[in-house]
């Protein structure tokens, strides 16, 4: 079985008795170590699909497996645990916890996982240094630039060695130089450490980095191509 398998996913939103099909029968597979971009216009269902894969939302129909575990069958508490141990998230708006420093933000996940203090401190510092953020460990989000915040967010997403990192338009709020730097960094993590990335974007520059491009349009996969 594939590392990630999405099978016949439907997602219908109902508002004022009007049903909107955000996803309409999405079938999709991913293997370990992939660096895949999900692209398509606004409203095509990218974020909805990522939310369902990450266990943040539930599909109206269909199933999702992540490393042999059917996540669509989990209850809220099990989903919480899945997100904590198996998935890493990078959001468009960085979404660091404003009252914590860079180090504490990264460390937070390990605290939830009950990793001993010494080990989690070492792991967090190591990751931040790897990503060139050694100088920022004691800075709060408000003292960092957007690019720095997003890199800390990536550090937070990978510090617990998740099986899948989901990044929802990670470069949308960054200038092109910073966006390049971030994509370089994510690509390097994929190359060097084999971390599986699935990210959404509609930026052609970002798509250039992807090894596989999956196009989503009106809630359906219209194109799925592997690049050499």
């Amino acid at each position, binding site marked *: 079985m594939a590392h990630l398998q999405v099978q016949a996913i439907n997602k219908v939103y109902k508002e004022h008795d009007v049903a909107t099909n955000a996803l309409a029968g999405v079938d999709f597979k991913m293997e370990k170590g992939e660096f895949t971009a999900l692209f398509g216009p606004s409203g095509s269902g990218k974020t909805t699909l990522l939310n369902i894969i990450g266990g943040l*939302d539930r599909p109206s129909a269909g199933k999702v497996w992540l490393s042999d575990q059917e996540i669509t069958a989990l209850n809220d508490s099990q989903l919480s645990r899945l997100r904590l141990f198996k998935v890493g998230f990078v959001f468009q708006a960085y979404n660091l916890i404003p009252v914590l420093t860079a180090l504490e933000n990264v460390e937070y996940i390990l605290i939830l996982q009950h990793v001993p203090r010494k080990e989690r401190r070492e792991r967090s510092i190591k990751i931040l240094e790897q990503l060139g953020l050694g100088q920022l460990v004691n800075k709060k989000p408000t003292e960092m630039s957007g690019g720095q915040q997003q890199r800390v967010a990536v550090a937070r997403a990978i510090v617990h060695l998740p099986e899948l990192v989901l990044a929802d338009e990670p470069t949308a709020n960054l200038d092109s130089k910073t966006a390049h730097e971030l994509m370089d960094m994510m690509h390097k993590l994929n190359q060097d450490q084999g971390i599986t990335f699935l990210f959404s974007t509609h930026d052609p520059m970002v798509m250039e980095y992807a090894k596989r491009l999956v196009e989503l349009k009106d809630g359906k996969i219209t194109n799925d191509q592997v690049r050499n």
Partner: protein
Amino acid sequence: MEFFKMAWRNLGRNPRRTIVIIAAVAVGVWAMCIVGSYYDAVSAKLLETVIFGNIGYVQIHRLGYHKNQSLRLCMTDGAAVINKIKGAPHLTGYSPRIYNFALARSPSSSQGVMIMGIDPDLEPTVTRIKSFIKSGSYFQSDDEPVVLIGKSLAHKLRLGAGDKIAFLMQGFSGGQDVVESFRIKGVFDSGFEDWNRGLVYMPIRQAERIMDMKGRLNEIAIMVDDPKNLDALKAELKARLPNRKSDLKAEPEQETLDNKAVHLLGIRSKEPGKLILAPEAIAESFKNNPNSELVSYRLELPATAVFERSGRKRSLELSVIGVEPLKEDRLSGIFSRVKVPENSWLAGAELDKELDANQGWVILGEAAAERLGVSAGDTILIEAQGKSLPLQVAGTLKRGPGAKEDGLFAISGSSDLWKEFVGQSAASEIVVRLKEGADSKETDQELLSSLGLDILDWKELYPDMVMLISAGDYVNYILLFCIYIIIAVGIANTMVMSVFERVREFGILKAIGTRPRQLFFMVIMESVMLALIGMALGGLVSGIIIGYWSRHGLDVAWFTWDLGGGGGPYVIHPTLTLVNILTIVVTAFVIAILSALYPAARASRLPVVEALSKY
């Protein structure tokens, strides 16, 4: 630990809001401390005024005295009671007292007062009487013919220390009013208007003398070492002064008056022939029984009647019976059956009234008169206990009171017999006339059990005071409740605002794996921290203020009721007790948690996707 840190740092995100709510909690706690300590202090002051001003913690009386303060309702052997209570654990002082109503007179005015006979040495072991003296001085010995009067009475009668004051009152035996003048030794201010206006202290020996109360007491006031030991002391006193079975017995009697059956109860000593001394005290208890209509006593002594005429002397063994004519007539109707010769000055008169107002008379049984050969107007000698009393025969009677059928009796006024033969008031029998329809079996038990002692503490003596204090407590609780509500609403509002501003952040925290209960805990922690800081600040400020008042006192005379209207410096000393502090801290803590429950629940239950979409 991380959640503590996050909660703590979250407080700093909106410093102005945090400062405002902390200040609100601080002011609330401050107000609670001040209100609580103020009411406690006022209650304590009120209680102190009453307990140390007059009543003491416990009082011992004859049963029923507390409701019916009659001089006669007394402990007839006060010294015996005192001997029993002396040395009781936790007893630090006792004060024997005699009370009597009197009319106080000065050349300019008069006023009804309560005279309180006190032992000058023992009274200060219970009350602070010495410190009440505003002019003149306290008693120096227990038999000085002087009194202490309250400042309001002094003002009304226009008298001061050194002046003379006259009192009109009735003594223990009733009868003639006693009028006597005393020098005012001092004027006092007890802090309680009723006492300042209506209480007169007199050395107990003087009170005993003028009220005929030697050896008798109306009250023993008692001081306890610590109010906490009050119940223990009361139990000890009750154990030392058990209401033993009376050594008296009650027997039903029946008389016919105006063709109507009259039910009587005759109360006698269980030991045949033994006299009941000071029967007035017992009669006073019996009068209080709702079934008793009339109480009187009879004294029956074995005597010899001697009559001498023209050198011929006759003597006869008989019973001489002392009665109270007015009352006896209503018990047995004997005075209407007395045969009076038509030429006697008593002929046609209401005999009971005439004889009640006169002394030196005797009514003989017909058989006795016949044997002695006397007729109305003759004087006979009654000899008993080696003494003899000349009495003039007023008339004859076939059947005497009680079961005197044989006619060998002589009836006279009991006060004549007391004076001549006993030396004090005494009775062989106390007779109670029952009201119509009263159950004599039930009543005799009630009468005998009404002769014990009452041991009452201040709460039983002054239930009004307990009510006043608890009314103060209720006001206090209402105020505290209002303050609690304000604090609760303040905290809840702050936390709701704070949660709604951070919906997206809670979404992120949940998205990356934070459990709902961890978020719940974090929000509650924020609220508790707000409350703790506010409480600490409020407690600190209250501690400083109350500490200052506690040391230097707070004069509340200008804004509170003046503990009776007597004026004077009403300085209270508010203190914060551990119970006060704990109550306030625990309550504020609980409020902090309760008021954060809703926002915390909201934060923990937010749907992640919805929360993430908020900006």
